[in-house]
């Protein structure tokens, strides 16, 4: 492994892994406790609508994906609060509609399409240096927001009606949470691929949730676990020459299943 560190891409991957695990640990804790894992998968596919829009109107599709995901997240959060609809139904609808809009817009804009999805997906081994700064900014942004609105975020996730009565700006905090999730998903998806984002959002937080008794501890433990998974997954992938993303996910997955087994045996 030491020899692997001579390569820039490996060093970047390790660094990126550390940065990613912080964001995923924090956001993932909310995602798991507020039960919006599905949202992360959905945002990614809704982003496709943005790519279509970018193509159709002739601006950068990635920008479109970004804007569309955020808009979808905010819109969904508004509808959910207004209509009191089951959130997973709404998220499923968002997923399908986002993709459909994308497909139709791309249809309409004509021209030969390269595989547009490839704009959305990346690999941890191919993270450009600049993106590391972006990741750092994301981490700092998330940490700042969570630090500033920690008690409101907790209250909202725990008991929405009571939060309303306490005059917490529930709508805004909800939007903040969903936006933070969407931002993390869209940015990371581009860097490490969608499946890995979902894996890193859910599994470290779920494992740490089995042992941590408070949200703060859960976040810290989830971040540490995420970093461990990424490091050992990278190791494994280098050693066995297998796809890194899949290795990282498998390490996380095996640990998650093991933690479930352990929790049930004791």
């Amino acid at each position, binding site marked *: 492994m030491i020899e692997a560190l001579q390569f820039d*891409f490996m060093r970047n991957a390790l660094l990126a892994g550390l940065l990613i695990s912080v964001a995923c640990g924090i956001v993932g804790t909310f995602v798991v406790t507020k039960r919006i894992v599905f949202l992360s998968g959905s945002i990614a596919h809704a982003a496709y609508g943005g790519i279509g829009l970018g193509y159709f109107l002739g601006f950068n599709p990635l920008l479109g994906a970004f804007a569309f995901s955020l808009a979808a997240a905010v819109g969904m959060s508004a509808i959910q609060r207004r209509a009191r609809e089951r959130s997973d139904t709404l998220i499923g609808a968002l997923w399908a509609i986002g993709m459909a809009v994308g497909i139709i817009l791309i*249809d309409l804009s004509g021209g*030969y399409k390269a595989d547009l999805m490839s704009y959305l997906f990346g690999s941890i081994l*191919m993270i450009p240096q600049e993106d590391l700064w972006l990741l750092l900014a994301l981490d700092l942004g998330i940490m700042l927001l969570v630090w500033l609105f920690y008690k409101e975020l907790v209250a909202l996730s725990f008991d929405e009606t009571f939060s309303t009565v306490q005059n917490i700006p529930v709508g805004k905090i909800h939007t903040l949470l969903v936006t933070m999730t969407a931002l993390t998903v869209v940015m990371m998806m581009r860097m490490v691929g969608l499946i890995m984002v979902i894996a890193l959002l859910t599994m470290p937080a779920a494992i740490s949730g089995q042992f941590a008794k408070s949200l703060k501890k859960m976040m810290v433990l989830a971040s540490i676990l995420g970093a461990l998974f990424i490091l*050992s997954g990278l190791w494994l992938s280098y050693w066995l*020459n297998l796809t890194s993303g899949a290795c990282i996910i498998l390490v996380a997955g095996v640990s998650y299943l093991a933690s479930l087994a*352990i929790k049930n045996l004791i």
Partner: protein
Amino acid sequence: MKGKVAGLFLFFSLIIFVLLSPIAGWASQEEKLLVAASILPQRYFIERIADQKVQIEIMVPPGANPATYEPKPSQLVSLSRASLYFAIGVPFEKAYLGRFFQINKNMVVVDTSEGISKIPISSIHDLTNGENGKSHGHEHSQGELDPHIWLSPRLVKIQAQNIQRALSSADPQNTKSYQKNLKRFLKELDELDEEIRGKLSETKGKKFMVFHPSWGYFARDYGLDMIPIEVEGSEPSAAELAKIISIAQKEKIRIIITQPEFPSRSAKVIAQEVGCRVVPISPLAPNWRENLLLLGDTLAEALKDNSREETKP
């Protein structure tokens, strides 16, 4: 608490296991020139010219899906050390070449399509010319150029020269050898071109269908007419499918060439309606020469059948 300890134990044992594992041997250095390229047929071209003097890394396996595509560490190790990247202009490169360049900024990207004048990619709209109110398709398709330049022996000759030039400037000691190999390869290409031409001499002007319009240059070279099913990269819509079926019936299409990388459901649907054969032939096959010959044989046979049945001249 017991759980926490057990959990941590698990992770650490995993890490120690990995740490103690033997370091892999695949990353061993060789003193050969390392070059990278996008697709498998390029390996054939480079090998013909470099003849064991370079190590080649192909970045995209056929059928790679953007949702799951991820290069392996070994590929990136090679890429980090590569001196040249032979780009060919496939759409994949648009999304990934930048990222590859990030990994190895010293790598020289060689555009092997230099000097080739590409033709517009053919589309079903070329045949129907916007009679359906969807006129934009035609306009746009003029801007889109067909990237499948590795499927014409004549164009490969130009690419081969580009490859030789780049190899020579990156590795001047072996220039002589590269030039010699190029000469031999160009001759082979001429022979191949002749061979295919011979197979298809009696099928001039005949039409065949393809799912993905990969064989545009091939068709042009050998005087065939290719009708694609795919419309600008996506499966045809209902109306388009209906139109394609009418065309296929009118033109008495006898064969549809599909790609094994992609399921050919729409081809099967059309074949069912028209009653013709569906033959999968990959444009990305690694044994490039045999693959082109196979296509030549297949088309010759299918289209000859066709001509025999037709009574009109």
